[in-house]
């Protein structure tokens, strides 16, 4: 689609400009990089969940063909690290995490030794020759087990395996509990997931002739990686260049600091040669961060009319063996702060405990904490409806935060504020698109024929784009909330935009250009977006927390405006009129009410660079950089509905329909927005129905070590997703957008669970934990049937 000048680009469903290269196989990923003299690193990983390392013999590996270096942790201990988290909730106990284990391993997959060789095959052959003697210790993998008194202890400085206690309180839950007609308790498990990017992690560190170091890494946060690598490997930050080329998916997993991110830069400098590491799929399962892994105990106090008076939550967040980058923030701030969801629950009390176990570290994964928080709120409201036998839609209506309540602080919270929204309207749109009444009737009618259909509903809200910067300090989040954008106009009037955001499939080259095109009023083809190179892009925080449009997009918007302001000054000089008489439209400066010929943007740009006729005091150039720090966070919301049929004989769930109505504020590009919803919903459906990491609770072995046993969603698993939007602009940023990236993965899990539970309601089944696999559903039905028979 081409857009004539003067038409707004924002709001148009443009196709992604970056797709052709990616679809034609011309994308450039880290593993595509082959530098002269490049060496390859391979890592020997612990086969035990918990063990003392008695000895490591590297002699055979060192003598193997092509091997340049073989090291164990002790050789690195004083050189690199330790790895410190970037988000540390105050009061947390932070265990020491070595880059390579020295005396003890704490999860299957932890790095124990490494080899650098001239070829990848030689590196792999050589790690097979390393001999390690372990003294195996008892392991603990489940959060409920890890907090028991007799549980194996992972770290001396983390007594009871709990690193962090975090409390939230608003109103008076105890009073609500006393006054409520009923109180129901529910334990819900948020299953552990593996992010499973199509592109596994990869890194190349290359020493440059001038003594600097370039690190190529599939990073969602290139500037953060530069800082972390610099600090941990002790390289002056300005001598380090981090380049993030095309990225095959991140979902949060590529925004943390991993041992390999530090080893390659260190080894490249030691060996004075480029060093590459590339993660195999099986390694990815046991070394890249996992997601979710919570257990929450809920206590819901409500009246017989379905109104919830109070909610009490106790969360155990399993974070694996060490505190990964943001680990203390997920089960705490990101989860329990949002435990009341879209509902007005004024009496709220939550305690979250962050628990270490002998498993892969758990960190951000699409939604990070918000899916768990929404699951609390949604399973709670669903429990109320089920308990009272009330319509699930009606119960939501009665408890919703109303449109007139915004901006709304749930349970009087100081940290959480929902800026805007209209949940009743979202619900109405969803019900209509779904044909709720019709299908309700259909479900009832079919039950008589032994056909079990069910309808699921889930509403969500959360907050995106952590900001403003000064508000992040008290929570222990050691970074800012701003984003930067440089809009650089060349002497022909075309724009290159350097953005600190980092696309990993979201389509920023299209959406950020749409934002700029509207302000600059130049064609999309005249705008290039540059991301992912710390030498080119001034500064930034990258892409996570659905922040890139709200924060990154706003910074592009503001700096584009600055460009136009300056161009206007220059134009006024060229036209010899007063600046305030000049207006800018359709890509040209005009003086309304006169017959002065319009002056095109490109002519003004040329003047800015030749500098021949600039007004006094105006410097040459047309190039503006903005560090934009938002005033607050936008709160997207949505209502999703699913229609399923459960085969009671096999437990198989057939998804007949899925409707998503989301309010993400102003839509920059409805096509890309729908794509974000689709992707998130697919991941959410997978979490609800079949994705689950399993560990052997005795040995701590990872049982879902490959894609043969760990189910990721495929086309055959998911329905056609019908996505539509409501646009309530966010007052927190100049373009009115809210985050979108995480919505689907937040809404879909409870939505699917509710649909299945609705279908199973004739059996009296009120709760099942995810994933709702056919064997699990079948077993639940069978136990009811057997109970009936008895």
């Amino acid at each position, binding site marked *: 689609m081409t857009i004539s000048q003067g038409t707004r680009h924002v709001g148009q469903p443009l196709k992604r400009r970056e797709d052709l290269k990616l679809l034609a196989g011309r994308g450039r990923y880290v593993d595509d990089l082959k530098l002269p003299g490049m060496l390859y690193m391979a890592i020997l990983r612990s086969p035990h969940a918990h063990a003392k390392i008695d000895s490591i013999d590297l002699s055979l590996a060192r003598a193997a063909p092509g091997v340049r270096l073989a090291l164990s942790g002790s050789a690195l201990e004083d050189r690199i690290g330790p790895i410190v988290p970037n988000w540390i909730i105050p009061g947390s106990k932070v265990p020491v995490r070595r880059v390579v284990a020295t005396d003890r391993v704490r999860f299957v997959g932890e790095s124990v030794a490494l080899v650098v060789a001239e070829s*990848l*095959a030689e590196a*792999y*052959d050589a790690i*097979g020759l390393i001999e390690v003697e372990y003294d195996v210790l008892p392991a603990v993998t489940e959060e409920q087990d890890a907090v028991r008194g007799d549980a194996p202890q992972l770290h001396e400085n983390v007594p009871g395996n709990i690193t962090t206690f975090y409390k939230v309180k608003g109103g008076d839950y105890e009073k609500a509990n006393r006054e409520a007609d009923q109180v129901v308790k529910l334990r819900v498990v948020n299953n552990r997931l593996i992010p499973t990017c199509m592109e596994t992690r990869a890194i190349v560190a290359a020493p440059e002739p001038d003594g600097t170091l370039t690190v190529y890494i599939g990073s969602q946060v290139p500037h953060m990686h530069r800082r972390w690598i610099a600090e941990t490997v002790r390289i002056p930050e300005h001598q380090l260049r981090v380049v993030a080329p095309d990225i095959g998916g991140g979902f949060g997993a590529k925004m943390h600091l991993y041992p390999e991110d530090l080893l390659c830069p260190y080894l490249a400098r030691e060996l004075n040669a480029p060093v590459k590491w590339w993660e*195999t*799929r*099986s390694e990815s399962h046991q070394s890249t961060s996992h997601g979710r892994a919570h257990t929450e105990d809920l206590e819901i106090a409500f009246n017989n009319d379905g109104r919830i008076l109070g909610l009490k939550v106790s969360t155990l967040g399993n974070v694996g063996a060490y505190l990964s980058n943001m680990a203390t923030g997920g089960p705490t701030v990101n989860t329990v702060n949002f435990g009341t969801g879209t509902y007005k629950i004024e009496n709220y009390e939550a305690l979250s405990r962050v628990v270490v176990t002998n498993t892969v570290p758990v960190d951000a994964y699409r939604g990070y904490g918000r899916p768990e928080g929404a699951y609390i709120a949604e399973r709670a409201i669903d429990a109320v409806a089920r308990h009272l036998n009330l319509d699930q839609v009606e119960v939501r209506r009665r408890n919703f935060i109303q449109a007139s309540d915004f901006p709304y602080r749930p349970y009087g919270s100081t940290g959480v504020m929902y800026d805007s929204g209209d949940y009743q309207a979202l619900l109405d749109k969803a019900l209509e698109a779904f044909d709720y009444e019709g299908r309700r009737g259909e479900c009832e009618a079919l039950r008589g024929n032994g056909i079990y259909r069910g309808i699921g509903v889930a509403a969500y809200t959360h907050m995106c784009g952590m900001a403003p910067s000064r508000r992040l300090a008290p929570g222990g989040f050691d970074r800012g909330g701003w984003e930067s954008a440089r809009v650089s106009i060349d002497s022909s009037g075309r724009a290159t935009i350097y953005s600190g955001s980092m696309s990993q499939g979201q389509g920023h080259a299209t959406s950020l250009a749409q934002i700029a095109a509207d302000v600059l009023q130049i064609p999309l083809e005249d705008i290039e977006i540059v991301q992912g190179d710390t030498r080119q892009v001034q500064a930034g925080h990258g892409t996570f927390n659905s922040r890139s449009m709200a924060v990154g997009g706003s910074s592009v918007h503001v700096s584009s405006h600055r460009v136009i302001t300056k161009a206007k000054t220059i134009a006024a000089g060229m036209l010899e009129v007063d600046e305030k008489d000049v207006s800018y439209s359709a890509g040209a400066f005009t003086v309304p009410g006169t017959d002065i010929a319009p002056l095109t943007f490109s002519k003004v740009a040329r003047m800015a660079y030749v500098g021949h006729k600039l007004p006094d005091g105006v410097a040459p150039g047309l190039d503006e950089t903005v560090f934009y720090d938002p005033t607050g966070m936008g709160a997207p919301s949505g209502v999703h509905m699913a229609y399923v049929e459960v085969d009671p*004989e*096999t*437990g*198989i769930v057939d998804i007949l329909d899925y409707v998503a109505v989301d309010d993400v504020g102003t839509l920059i590009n409805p096509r890309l927005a729908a794509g974000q919803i689709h992707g998130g919903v697919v991941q959410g459906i997978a979490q609800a*129905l*079949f994705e689950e990491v*399993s560990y052997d609770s005795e040995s701590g072995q990872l*049982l*879902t070590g*490959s*894609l*043969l*046993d*760990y*189910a*990721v969603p495929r086309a055959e*698993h998911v329905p056609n997703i019908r996505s539509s939007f409501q646009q309530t602009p966010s007052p927190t940023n100049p373009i009115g957008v809210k985050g979108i990236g995480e919505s689907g993965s937040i809404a879909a899990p409870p939505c699917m669970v509710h649909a299945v539970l609705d279908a199973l309601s004739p059996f009296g089944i009120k709760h099942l934990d995810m994933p709702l*696999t*056919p*064997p699990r559903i*079948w*077993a639940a039905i*069978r136990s009811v049937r057997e109970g009936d028979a008895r």
Partner: protein
Amino acid sequence: MIPAAFDYVRASSLTQAIELLRDNPDGAKLVAGGHTLLPALKLRLAAPELLIDIRSVAEIKGIEIGETHVKIGALTTHSELSASEPLNNVFPIFRETARLLADPQVRNRGTIGGSLANADPAADWPAVVLALGAQLEIVGATGRRTVPAEDFFLDIFTTTLAPDEILASIQIPKPKTGTRYAYRKIRHPASGFAVVGVAIAVRMLDGVVDEASIGITGATNHAFVGKEAAEFLTGKALTRDNIDEAARMLSENTECLSDRYAPAEYRANLVRVELGRALLELSQ
């Protein structure tokens, strides 16, 4: 993801391939489509010193529709089995099964011979060749032998093939007219392999079952024939009651596998439900 080093020979005849197998008794492996073997090599679960690629062995390729038998070369890929009109005119179950097996990439490379020789307890073709009463033609240093499919599968990943033998072809007696087939499969959500797969062939005569045969995969250590259930059905009409009884019989007589995903009771249930549904399909 990086296999250990190995030598590679592309054999041009069965004789050559067998000689190579005999000369390297411990360290050689045949490779056909490679879609089972290569993943094992990459994970270093297998590290043969020599790979003998048999894809150029013309003698074990192709599909022949003979007078009395249909002969399928071991190297025939899943896609070829699905695409062949002459084959599917006789045995439409090949297309029906191939459609449910893996994805197009795997189907384009993987072979029926490799699948049978590998004897994965959850593979699809074993159930089909059992239901069709196939004979497996095996060639070794001492000559040729033919084994009924029923005697071929011994245990998990174990067949009657000796280390220096090659599965050459699958020979299936042509059916009596009016025989109908069905293959039903419940897939594992991750691997796509069969949690349980049921292949059946049924011929009706005058409203009752004249001949029936049943092959089951996924449920136990190796695919097997549901003989009792088939015998029970013979001479009976495919009524709801008879179907239920046959399904129950088969399910109760099967000692099912249990794993993290599907406990034995669930598999036994699937054997019952899927056989019942397959028979119901054919009764209509």
